[in-house]
């Protein structure tokens, strides 16, 4: 083996081969020949190498030509919606205080659709590094005008050249960001010639180092060539970058308070769950259900899908179940899914309940399905995990469950509700039937919860009647 220490080559923070990239060419980037994104990627990867930050970094890719950042960087990767990378980065930075965030964005992404996100992330001083690639055009979509396109620049959407009276002047983002109080470091660089590439390399390194030192928000604007969008050869594009772009967008540091700024202050502690419950007026009532550690420890994950037609209250059944789980000190998510027609269409919801942390809120393999109508059974029967349970509203659904590897429980939910005096409470029958059968949580605690949630006493009493009727039916006919 040859010793590579004295060589300059591919940085370690790139994957060896780009397995996520489709096609055969897994060692080159997807960009056009001469594209500045590739140059900038290398500088970021080198900085991650020398600061040993790659393992703790989440690279947030934008929408734009660099949407596929996750092909290349051997870091954590998230691809954000257009313009939203700083918002996604905020979430990552706040959730993982030991990690680092790179928000990599084009000028369409950052200076057009994402203007609000970048301004506010900067203004909050989030501990992240934004690499803003300013090529003065929308590359990905075929060369439309960006807020940063220069005066007179002809693009697909400014065929006669950018007219400032009509379209405003090109936005200088570094100057704007630097004017905010919170950012600690703002510099504009250009990946044109060797001298400027070196400055860009230093700036990216400085910004990432500042983030590592928890100094707060750092912003590096990189002027970059888009030969394809500019309709120039790569070599001529570099000339335009130097002669035209670097003139309108002066290079240099717009802010550097790294020496004087202390580490970014921690926000005040958030209110506890109990404080929030108290503020909502359900304070100590929240503790009405007594939960033991063993109950929580032994709780078996419930992945529940409740489905029916709009108006049957399937979403409310889900929130009721979710609420109950919260009062049992379980982790829970509730995700509704319905068409634009709030009534009459189909509706269903996902409820994930377990004893520690819910990963995805999406229940694609439920172990509990509650089918309030026929189409719901048709649609979701096959998604149920083997060994799971399907509760069927037999008042409406004539068919039987076809699967033999799941338990089927038939409960005339609509009839039971009607007999108990509230027709609309079939959803409550569904929840009560599920709890009576599975014993996942104590049925009496559902009653306790209702007493807290419903203000009107008649409504509480009627629902208690429904719950008892459901329990009786299940114990008599289904166990």
């Amino acid at each position, binding site marked *: 083996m040859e010793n590579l220490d004295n060589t300059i080559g591919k940085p370690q923070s790139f994957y060896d081969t780009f397995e996520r990239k489709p096609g055969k060419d897994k060692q080159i980037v997807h960009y056009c020949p001469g594209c500045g994104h590739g*140059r900038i990627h290398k500088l970021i990867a080198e900085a991650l190498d020398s600061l040993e930050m790659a393992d703790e970094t989440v690279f947030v890719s934008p929408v734009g030509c660099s949407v596929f950042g996750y092909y290349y960087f051997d870091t954590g990767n998230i691809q954000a919606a257009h313009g939203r990378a700083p918002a996604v980065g905020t979430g990552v930075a706040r959730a993982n205080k030991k990690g680092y965030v790179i928000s990599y964005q084009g000028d369409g992404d950052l200076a057009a659709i994402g203007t609000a996100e970048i301004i506010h992330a900067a203004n909050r001083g989030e501990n992240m590094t934004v690499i803003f690639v300013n090529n003065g055009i929308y590359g990905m979509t075929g060369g439309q005008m960006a807020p940063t396109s220069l005066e007179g620049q002809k693009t697909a959407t400014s065929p006669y050249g950018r007219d400032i009276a009509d379209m405003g002047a090109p936005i200088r983002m570094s100057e704007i960001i630097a004017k905010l109080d919170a950012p600690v470091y703002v510099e504009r660089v250009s990946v044109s010639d060797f001298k400027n590439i070196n400055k860009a*390399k230093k700036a990216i390194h400085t910004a990432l180092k500042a983030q590592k030192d928890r100094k707060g928000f750092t912003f590096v604007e990189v002027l970059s060539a888009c030969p394809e969008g500019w309709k120039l050869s790569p070599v001529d594009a570099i000339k335009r970058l130097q002669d035209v772009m670097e003139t309108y967008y002066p290079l240099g540091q717009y802010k550097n308070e790294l020496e004087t700024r202390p580490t970014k202050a921690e926000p005040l502690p958030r209110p506890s769950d109990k404080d929030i419950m108290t503020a909502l007026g359900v304070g100590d009532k929240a503790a009405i259900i007594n939960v033991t550690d063993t109950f929580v420890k032994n709780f078996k994950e419930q992945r529940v899908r409740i489905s029916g037609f709009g108006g049957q209250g399937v979403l409310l059944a889900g929130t009721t179940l979710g609420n109950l789980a919260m009062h049992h000190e379980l982790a829970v998510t509730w995700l509704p899914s319905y068409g634009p027609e709030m009534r009459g269409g189909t509706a269903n919801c996902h409820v994930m309940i377990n004893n520690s942390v819910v990963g995805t809120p999406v229940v694609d393999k439920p172990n509990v399905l509650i089918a309030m109508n026929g189409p719901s059974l048709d649609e979701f029967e096959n998604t149920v995990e083997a060994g799971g349970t399907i509760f069927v509203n037999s008042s409406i659904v004539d068919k039987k469950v076809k699967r033999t590897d799941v338990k089927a429980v038939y409960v005339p939910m609509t009839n039971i509700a009607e007999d108990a005096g509230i027709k609309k409470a079939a959803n409550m029958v569904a929840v009560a039937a599920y709890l009576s059968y599975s014993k996942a949580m104590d049925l009496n605690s559902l009653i306790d919860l209702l007493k807290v949630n419903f203000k009107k006493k008649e409504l509480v009493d009627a629902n208690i009647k429904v719950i008892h009727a459901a329990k009786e039916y299940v114990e008599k006919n289904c166990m």
Partner: protein
Amino acid sequence: MSEEKTPRVEIQPELCKGCELCISQCPKKVLELGKDLNHMGYNFATYKGDGCIGCGVCFYACPEPGTIRVYKKIRGDK
């Protein structure tokens, strides 16, 4: 064992998109575009064979992550 070596540059022909940025920015003008095409259909950059000073300019000029490797120091282990 180490042996005396002059600086040099290695360019992977099959990983080159022929953008010529390395060629135009090399201070010693020791790179050129070859006549052959690679599998992607690009004329690829090649090292003329001598005169490289190992400055690394071509590496940073190239938008590809690992197409160019520059051997900068005089000493290298074989």
